[in-house]
């Protein structure tokens, strides 16, 4: 049994004929770091909401740790296992003090007060927001607010965190802060990360990339496998590629190079002594 399993899942929103998700079959193991890409309307957010039972498929089945998301009695358990961070940092903060916001989840789970204290402190330290614990959330930057949201999930001791375009509204440093925080959770705590994004340079940082189009999985593999077909990515699926890959393509170099460091190394090898003073 895999950690998360989708078997033949199809989902349409009420009053629409179009299928937002169509016949998805997929397994995710505990500890994976997966990015999900696809143009607007490709089904990414629907996919995210199916992961923790916010949406339950009428056809097919989604299960987490062997429990079906359709099992109403286990709903709370499911929400505790799979946490979600949304796009707008201002829409998901409920309390007027940072630490109270982080305590909201465990309080609702009925965690004893003394344990809540430890969990909140640990969670805030993990995302680097402990020194802000007594601050008002509205005074924080976007990246800081998103890290508070992540801490709030962390305090529920989840197995998986779903980031639904959580960096779309952030500046470059805010994006990096959030990415660093989730990488740490994945590496040090083995938390499964499902990272939905429109930024291809973020997507290629994951171990595995899932490409959605019209509600179906069109590619699923390592970043290099998924991005290998340049024409499909840029034309068919309406996405783009990191600049290092774009450069290789325009130079006529047949290499799927997705990161800047790798690009510098590769170019240095290709250039050799050419171009040196």
């Amino acid at each position, binding site marked *: 049994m895999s950690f998360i399993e989708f078997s033949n899942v199809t989902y349409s929103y009420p009053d629409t004929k179009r299928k937002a998700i169509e016949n998805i079959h997929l397994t995710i193991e505990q500890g994976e770091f997966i990015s999900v890409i*696809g*143009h*607007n*309307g490709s089904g990414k957010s629907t996919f995210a909401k199916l992961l923790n039972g916010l949406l339950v498929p009428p056809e097919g089945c989604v299960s987490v740790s062997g429990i079906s998301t359709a099992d109403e009695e286990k709903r709370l358990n499911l929400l505790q296992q799979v946490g979600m961070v949304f*796009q707008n940092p201002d829409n998901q903060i409920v309390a007027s003090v940072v630490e109270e916001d982080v305590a909201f989840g465990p309080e609702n789970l009925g965690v004893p007060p003394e344990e809540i204290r430890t969990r909140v402190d640990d969670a805030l330290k993990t995302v680097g927001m402990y020194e802000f614990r007594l601050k008002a959330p509205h005074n924080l*930057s*976007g*990246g800081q607010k998103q890290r508070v949201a992540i801490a709030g999930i962390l305090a529920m001791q989840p197995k998986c965190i779903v980031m639904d*375009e959580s960096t*779309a*509204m*952030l*500046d*470059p*440093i*805010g994006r990096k802060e959030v990415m660093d925080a989730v990488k740490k959770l994945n590496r040090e705590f083995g938390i499964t990360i499902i990272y939905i994004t*429109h930024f*291809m*340079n973020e997507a290629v940082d994951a171990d595995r990339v899932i490409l959605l189009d019209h509600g179906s999985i069109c590619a699923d593999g390592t970043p290099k496998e998924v991005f290998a077909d340049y024409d499909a990515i840029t034309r068919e699926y*309406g*996405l*783009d590629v*990191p*600049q*290092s890959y*774009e*450069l290789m393509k*325009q*130079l*006529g*170099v*047949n*290499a*799927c*190079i997705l990161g*800047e*460091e790798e*690009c*510098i190394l*590769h*170019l*240095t090898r*290709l*250039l050799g002594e*050419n*171009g*040196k*003073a």
Partner: protein
Amino acid sequence: MALDDINLTIRAGETLAIIGHTGSGKSTLITHLNGLLKAQSGTVIFEGKDIWADKKELKNIRFKIGLCFQYPEYQLFEETVYKDIAFGPKNMGLDEKEIDRRVRQSLAYMDLPESYLERSPFDLSGGQKRKIALAGILAMQPDILVLDEPTAGLDPAARNNLFDLIRSYKEQSGTTVVFVSHSMEDVANLADRIVVMNKGKIAMEGAPEEVFQHADELLAIGLNVPAITKIFLGLQKNGYPFQTVYTVEDAVKILKPLIGGDTLDA
């Protein structure tokens, strides 16, 4: 202080990018351009006149300096796309015929078919809604178009499409464009000049090739340089005396003759 001792000249016809981390004063700066905010000290001069000199005139200045906020699609409110785009020109007191002409022209600038005019803006996709909101500003035919993060939250295709439309609108109309962005790649591709904000002050100002030379300083104030610029800075470190580039196009011009069509596999 949200803004501190800003001295800035915006030249007619240029495309100016304003960059800076969250809270650096970018949005405060652009809301001063058309008098939505009034500075406690200093003046904002538009076409030789202090915008606050005559309060009655200020209304007209707001038509001339079209401000498009972040996520403008949240400000759509009318029943039809037509009415929403017509809202601005109507407030300008234009006659029906001129309003109709401007609504259709603005929609065309955004490359949307006229069949959209009778649709509800709320039935459209996010990217389309944003185009409608922008068309509403273009319909006022502003002399300066000010855009606060015009492509935030859009997917890559929608982002490229919107930038292409802004670029072609600018070419056709000659409008001055001022835009705020967090994407250094977008800034590099669109801007003639960049203003870097930090802690309410202008930290740097210049053409992209000048500003992106200062990668370390930009990183220190929470910004970045385009990925292609990072690659070139790395090549410089490895002993290649290339100039610093900021677009893939310029990078190809330099590298192509040196690599000579080799198709080595990685």
